[in-house]
């Protein structure tokens, strides 16, 4: 029986390409590791970017409402400015609105037990707690209705110096009591979120009057056309801007990503990560072809078509790249999992993951193009010179 791998010309391509790669096991392992690390590097940078985007729109996306009403020119949730509280009633009376409630956002000082002052972002919540924490690690969200009681995220425990429910601290020189700890409510502004009721928040945030809030959050009636309701609110309620949840999330993300130096830095870092990863992958694959250039010359001299050699190179690139990407993906998912409860999470979406894989495979194909060019330039006469 002839070797099973040599049954057809396609199997010759597979046999030659895989055996060429696996012959030097150490080199093979190093190459796959190199590609895996390159992929992981690129994926980690993109994962940071996705994590960042998710973080800065998390409260909007998790509020469970359809429409946000705010002061004109509000650029991001964090920089909400005052609007009259009676806008809640005005919005509630618009046709198609199921319910509406307020939200207050303000920046004030928190005094750490060790004496240092920390800026925090206070989120004042209305009756349904829309815009509040979506997961609790400890305590109950309803505790914010108690006087002087707040909820902070477990990720901010150390920063705020509050380790247990019932601990006391000071905010703007006044006492606060920890009513519970939320889970996974990250901040990327470095100012921890502090959730409380609107009434409590008004006691602490000095620049808001008792009849002011920052946002009106709207839930539409079931099966309603959200865009129609948005337009109706904009027509019927004066001096406000009305956005759907998606629009507001997008605006917030765009503000932080494109209008601040921090966002641009993250984007550039992600792009560099992709570029460096692509270059490492391409170089690694090109080096493999160069290592075997004499063997390719021999195959050419023996009458193998350029097409067959191209297929061998492409098969090598895709199999090495594929393996490296699989290993890199495993590393990336492990890192995503490990960072899930950290202040700087790596996150991804199915689309982003597929995009990363497709991009990496494209890099492999591009690098094989360089290798194929080297083979095209190869002179089979060179085999006569040993």
């Amino acid at each position: 029986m002839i070797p099973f791998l040599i049954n057809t010309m396609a199997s010759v391509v597979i046999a030659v390409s895989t055996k060429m790669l696996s012959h030097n096991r150490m080199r093979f392992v190093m190459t796959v590791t190199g590609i895996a690390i390159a992929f992981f590097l690129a994926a980690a940078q993109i994962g940071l970017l996705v994590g960042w985007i998710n973080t800065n729109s998390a409260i909007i996306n998790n509020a469970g409402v359809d429409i946000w009403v705010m002061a004109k020119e509000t650029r991001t949730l964090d920089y909400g400015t005052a609007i009259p509280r009676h806008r809640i009633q005005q919005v509630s009376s618009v046709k198609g609105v199921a319910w509406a409630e307020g939200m207050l956002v303000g920046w004030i000082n928190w005094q750490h037990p060790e004496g240092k002052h920390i800026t925090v972002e206070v989120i004042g919540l209305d009756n349904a707690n829309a815009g509040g924490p979506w997961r609790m690690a400890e305590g109950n969200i309803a505790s914010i209705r108690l006087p002087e009681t707040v909820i902070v995220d477990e990720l901010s425990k150390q920063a705020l110096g509050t380790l247990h429910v019932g601990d006391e601290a000071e905010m703007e020189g006044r006492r606060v009591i920890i009513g519970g700890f939320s889970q996974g409510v990250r901040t990327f502004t470095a100012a921890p979120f502090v959730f409380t009721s609107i009434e409590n928040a008004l006691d602490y945030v000095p620049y808001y009057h008792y009849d002011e809030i920052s946002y009106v959050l709207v839930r539409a009636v079931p099966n309603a056309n959200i865009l129609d309701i948005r337009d109706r609110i904009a027509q019927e309620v004066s001096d406000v801007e009305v956005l759907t949840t998606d629009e507001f999330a997008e605006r917030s993300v765009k503000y932080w990503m494109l209008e601040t130096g921090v966002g641009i830095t993250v984007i550039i870092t992600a792009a560099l990560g992709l570029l460096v990863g692509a270059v490492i992958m391409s170089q690694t694959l090109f080096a493999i072809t160069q290592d075997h250039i004499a063997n390719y010359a021999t195959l050419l001299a023996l009458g193998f078509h350029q097409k067959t050699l191209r297929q061998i190179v492409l098969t090598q690139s895709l199999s090495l790249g594929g393996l490296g990407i699989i290993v890199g993906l495993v590393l990336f998912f492990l890192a995503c999992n490990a960072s899930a409860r950290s202040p700087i999470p790596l996150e991804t979406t199915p689309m982003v993951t597929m995009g990363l894989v497709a991009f990496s495979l494209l890099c492999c194909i591009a690098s094989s193009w360089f290798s194929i060019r080297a083979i095209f330039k190869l002179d089979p006469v060179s085999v006569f010179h040993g």
Partner: protein
Amino acid sequence: MKSILTCQGITKSYGSGDIIENVLKQVDLEFFEGQASVLIGPSGSGKTTLLSILGCLLAPSEGQLLIADQSVNFFDKSSLTEVRRQKLGFIFQHAQLLPFLTIEENLAIVGRNAGMNDADIKQRLDNLLQRLELQAMRYKHPNQLSGGQRQRVAIARALLHRPSIVLADEPTAALDWLTGKTVVELLLEQARLEKAVLVVVTHDTRMLPLFDRILSIADGLLSEQQQTAIADNTFYTQT
């Protein structure tokens, strides 16, 4: 005898303008079925250039090459590959077996590339491995073989797809005299058995009595020597 390979006015020049080096000058040659020729000459005389042209690896500047009365089109790379694939067998100085394949696989891929079917490949593989006493090496890799064994595998690889022409470039250069002689004898025996034209380039004049024809090349000019010249050791000077 049937003519297999013919060179008509083959010239090969490098350079241009005033700086032209003629490596081969108007070479006319004819090789017949089952004939074994040796090509000798000093370094840089054009031996490898002629062998490369005969092997359809290098285009001549002038003249034409005929294989089985068919002119070779050196401008069509694909047809050159096709000629090499079907009609030519090569043996290189260092065997140049693919190090990552077993001996069996090294041979089988050549058969498959030449379009042979499974049964034919198997029959030829078994036959050649037996004739060249390589059965025990079948599943080994080239690095597990001695230099002489590797050249025997190279002979098997060159013959597997039944080429009408076998070209060997200094196949004994990396071997000691005795091993080299054995390899050349095997090569001659197998090529004659297959009725293939055999052209061997060598520096080793001790091998010359084994061949049917002795071709000497010097300064790009080719001449045929008589076996009597062996005793005088005047191969590089006679014209």
